């Protein structure tokens, strides 16, 4: 026991859990292979990781830091008492999630097929998304203006 603990770096139960987990994954891969989808599944799996960790996350973090830098660069005298950054982040996040859940429809990736199977047009999704996005930013800006007005009144 002690030996495993020392050489392996954790409790033996930890090792058992890891091996069970890897065994299930390996078995699942043989199942996918039997259906002839192994290569494409592994590629998409890896692409999913890269897409989130090395594309999506760096981009949204960079945009966020850009906004943070702009807000910090404002001279103290002009810096509003109410920080505005979250009034930008909130509508951007909600709009971004809506884009993620419906991007094949919004981007009309299967425009003619969608219209053929459903009998209705796919272009509406882009309109829906733009309308909702505009609405979210307007509401967020309105709440911000109210907060600034309240802060001003409280100070005077």
């Amino acid at each position, binding site marked *: 026991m002690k030996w495993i603990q020392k050489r*392996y*770096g954790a409790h033996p139960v*930890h*090792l058992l*859990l*890891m091996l*069970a*987990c*890897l065994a*299930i*994954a390996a*078995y*699942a*891969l*043989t*199942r*996918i292979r*039997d*259906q002839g*989808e192994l290569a*494409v*599944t592994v590629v*998409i*799996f*890896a692409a*999913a*990781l890269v*897409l*989130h*960790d090395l594309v999506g*996350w760096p981009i949204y973090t960079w945009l966020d830091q850009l906004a*943070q830098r702009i807000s910090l660069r404002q001279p103290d005298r002009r810096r509003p008492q109410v*920080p505005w*950054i*979250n009034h930008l*982040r*909130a509508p951007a*996040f*909600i709009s971004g*999630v*809506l884009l*993620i*859940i*419906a*991007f*094949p429809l919004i981007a009309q*990736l*299967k425009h003619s*097929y*969608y219209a*053929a*199977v*459903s*009998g*209705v047009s796919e272009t*509406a*999704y882009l309109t*829906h*998304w733009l309308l*909702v996005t505009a609405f979210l930013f307007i509401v967020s800006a309105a709440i911000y203006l109210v907060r600034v007005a309240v802060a001003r009144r409280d100070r005077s």
Partner: protein
Amino acid sequence: MVLLVGIPIEFITGLLSYAAYDPKAGNDPNPAHGIFGFYLFDWFTEPSWAYRLIQGVHVILGFALVPVVLAKLWSVIPRLFEWPLWRSIAHLLERVTLIMLVGGVVFEMLSGIFNIGYVYGYGSFYPGHFYGAWIFMAAFVVHVSLKLPKMVESLRSRRLRTELRTGLAGTQPEPYSEGGLVALSPAAPTISRRSVLALVGGTSLVVVGLTAGQTVGGALRRVAWFGNRYASPGVGPNHFPVNHTAEEAGIGPDQTGSSWTLEVVGPSTVTLTRDQLLAMPQITADLPIACTEGWSTTQRWTGVRLSDLAHKAGVAEFGPATLEALDGSGVILTGSQVRAGESMLALKVNGADLSLDHGYPARVMIPAAPGNHNKKWMNRIVFQSAPGPGQASAPGAAS
């Protein structure tokens, strides 16, 4: 915490959704399932809204979990790039399972979203989504069992009520700890914990509000702007969403005109015109069409009981049946689906003749089954008799 409940619900509804296809009867999108099919059973026919509920929850809860997963990954990602990459074999193995966990959750969500958006170019949807779910769940169970004590500890370290009363000014980063989740040198906070919670929860609510209508119906259907059936073609009694139009299936008036007949095969074979079918005893039932893509709609259907048709073909003990449509597609029903009192060959919907898009001249409606069991533009039904006591196998279609 939300994921701890939400992800098992996704997994179970997903497994049930696969069982609903009745892979054992012969409709198997994952024929290589092996021991992952250990739980499969003959799908039931009551209550009729079963598949509608299961698949609606699967898709809409899946949408609602997207912001939660994004927030979860955002909160742990500073530790992804920690150094050294591995401190021990145990740590290395754990990081391998983390690849399965993070890659798995993003993969499951993306493949679901692709399927709803009809992007099939990457291969078939079912194997990836099904086997991928097993890989992801294996990593999920391991991750939860290793991290549960830590989660309880962190939840105990803060009181929700205190946190909800803490604005930005009072928000402090957590102290760094080995194996913890905090960045090595966190930046000054610009958002309070309560705001993050509110934003993620609020986003889930917005997502549910703008998609749930495709399943729930009613007034919400008008704002199901991001579900994959935001509107319906058709007029009057036939105004409800269409899965596949007749045009796309290549069905034209020449096949569905007055010369159309339905071939019913059993121990004896009968051929019936639409008028002959209308002259048989009719039943009416409210049954849903529930699509794997998540949308569903319940309408009032009128037609001939499937069991009456089986009797007409000389079947006494109901076995499986094969449905064949004019477009060449087919599906296999179990004996209990043939026997169910509300299973029917529908000729009318909401009192009017079916429209061509909804399956004219006749379509099958099976309670509680996935939409693809409700075959439109029926051409032929082959009924088998159930094996009687002592018989080794079904006698099969007398053809």
